[in-house]
């Protein structure tokens, strides 16, 4: 896919960040934990069936209440919201506050929420509490519109889903709205939640690690002993705006969303294509869209969830897209620490790239004891690697063959 030339377009920059994750909810805390190689994975109660083989995940320990005044809710009211809405609203409000953005219900601020299975989750959580919404004839308005109204966002508000790449597609769409002049700023990102159905379904698909005796070492992307991914909840949101607008209001610019590349395998509903050509095309398209050559990439945050097939396919795609430059570019998977946040993963890993730029260090892949020879890359095992980092690439690949690459650049 030939990406359009962005040379005539103004850079779109990130001026606000908000997150909820197993590694913390503040940018500095998350950056500290990523560079320290801490795992957010622990034993959990997976739901009604005690016999479920997967009894660990990476949950969010505590969802911070949004600051008073950012969403019109008192802490008590926030506590009464459903967990999915809490998980989205808290980082959304934090991103808006971090950017110092005055939404004020104007039509020039948009919201794109990456969320793959909102209705399934909503029906499930209601059903498990004794409700019957899944059986009735209700037509429930989607969460994105409630979130927009709570934050005073009066412009376009849309939910997008591309499985594990959902929040990255949300970032791409928000940038498109800004480029098109439809909005002046856009809040973008995504979040996901742990649910019994999701854990059971992924487990039955044999997609999850079953290393129950040692949860913190279960997520081991690129390792020869990997046996699947570890589910997590959380995600991240960003405020995007034009660089001149951000500078005009003296906003802190955390980085530039410089490039986006997207493609589809068009091959299987649940398995990545073993042929890396389509994923590689998304990476190449993102680099071209950002106007950077492979050797200018300083760090790659891999999608690498720890599945036997997926990690090999991604290593091949990276090598095909970056060519001879591959061996000099550090590649790591922060899912080794955070677990896999599904809809929220792409945005959280974009945040990890911002952390790498700010700290001038590539985060590690923990548990990478014995790199798989079929995943030959310049890995960052166990401990972070100090390095000059100005340009990063972050891959996200999802069920149904969705491929996405984001290029983030230092301001």
């Amino acid at each position: 896919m030939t990406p359009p030339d962005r040379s005539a377009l103004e850079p779109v920059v990130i001026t606000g960040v908000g997150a909820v994750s197993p590694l913390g909810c503040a940018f500095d805390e998350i950056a500290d934990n990523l560079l320290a190689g801490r795992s957010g994975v622990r034993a959990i109660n997976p739901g009604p069936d005690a016999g479920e083989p997967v009894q660990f995940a990476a949950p969010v320990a505590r969802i911070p209440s949004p600051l008073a005044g950012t969403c019109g809710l008192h802490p008590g009211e926030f506590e009464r919201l459903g967990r999915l809405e809490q998980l989205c609203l808290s980082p959304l409000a934090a991103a808006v506050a971090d950017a110092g953005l005055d939404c004020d219900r104007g039509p020039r601020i948009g919201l794109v929420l990456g969320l793959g299975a909102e209705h399934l989750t909503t029906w499930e959580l209601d059903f498990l509490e004794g409700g019957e919404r899944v059986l009735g004839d209700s037509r429930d308005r989607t969460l994105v519109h409630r979130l927009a109204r709570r934050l005073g966002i009066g412009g376009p508000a849309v939910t997008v889903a591309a499985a594990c790449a959902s929040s990255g597609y949300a970032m791409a769409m928000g940038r498109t709205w800004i480029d098109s002049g439809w909005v002046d700023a856009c809040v973008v990102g995504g979040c996901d939640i742990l649910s019994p159905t999701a854990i059971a379904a992924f487990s039955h698909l044999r997609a999850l690690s079953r290393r129950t005796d040692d949860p913190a070492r279960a997520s081991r992307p690129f390792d020869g002993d990997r046996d699947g991914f570890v589910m997590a909840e959380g995600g991240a949101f960003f405020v995007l705006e034009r660089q001149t607008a951000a500078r005009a209001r003296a906003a802190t610019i955390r980085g530039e969303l410089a490039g986006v590349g997207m493609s589809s395998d068009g091959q299987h509903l649940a398995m990545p294509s073993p042929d890396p050509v389509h994923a590689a095309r998304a990476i190449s398209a993102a680099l071209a869209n950002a106007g950077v050559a492979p050797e200018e990439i300083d760090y790659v945050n891999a999608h690498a969830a720890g599945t036997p097939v997926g990690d090999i396919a991604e290593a091949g795609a990276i090598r095909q897209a970056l060519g001879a430059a591959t061996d000099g570019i550090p590649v790591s998977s922060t899912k080794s620490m955070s677990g896999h946040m599904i809809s929220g993963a792409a945005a959280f890993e974009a945040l990890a790239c911002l952390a790498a730029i700010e700290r001038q260090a590539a985060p590690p892949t923990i548990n990478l004891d014995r790199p798989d020879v079929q995943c030959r890359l310049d890995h960052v095992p166990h401990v972070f690697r100090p390095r000059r980092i100005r340009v990063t690439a972050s891959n996200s690949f999802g069920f149904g063959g969705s491929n996405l690459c984001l290029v983030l650049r230092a301001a």
Partner: protein
Amino acid sequence: MNLIASSPFPGSAGCSIRGHAVVASRLSSLAALRDAAVPPGCPALPPRFLRQSDEHTVVAVRAVLAAMAGLPEPMNFDRCGVIAAPCQAGRIAAARSLTQLQASGAGGVSPPIVPQCSLHSLGDAVSVALGMHGPHIGVGGGPDALAEGLFAAVSLVQGGTGSGCDLAWLVVTDWDTEPLLDAAGMPTNDPSCRALAMLLAPADPADDDRLSLSLHMPTAAVGAALPADPPAGGLAAFCRAVEMCATGSVLTSWAVSCPWGAEIRLVVREQVEGLMLHRIPAAVSRRREAA
């Protein structure tokens, strides 16, 4: 509400509709669509591809195939994108899965529930079924799916600075009335599931496409309260409007309102003595006429 077109050239601000088709099926008749032959000239589906698919996915794939079959000449869809906007897809399968979860624990959860019943599932299926390699996404998911799908499609096709997507299928699906389910998750009524598939391309005044979509953004702030839910049957009415505009049997136009005040209008272009006329609604209220 004050509105402004997203380009100074009315009718080109948005995208052209290169082809379209509507497929609807009663729930009781849907099984026949799962294994039906593909229309002549269309690519074959992978074996048993729709056997476990959600009802929305079945009619969506069939609508895309029908639209393909209706194109005046074969096209290359290798880099084509897919925007799929279902309304509450997956509810029947979700109800069955949840009743099994309650009855027999996690072991009763069906593995395909996630890949087959998520917001992205419908777009996944169209992309995989037809082997297309452009980006594909699910959009909306609720009663505003038609408006959100149209808006996202225009984003991707017209404003796609990162997508590189110059051709995309927009597929919108909905029930005419929601299925009513008993305690075991079995339907007790027989609603109709409908899909509209439209092949979209960037607007180009040189094209002779009869139909296009035109985006109009609001200039005034919206209120704090959400507007009333869009009425059920909105997709059926929009499908009728598309077909009426396409055939020219009645000169009509239609606008879909987004919850944030934007409108996406169907625009009919007509060639009159060498001049291309863009007929757009004189008043937004006309959007109810075709209903």
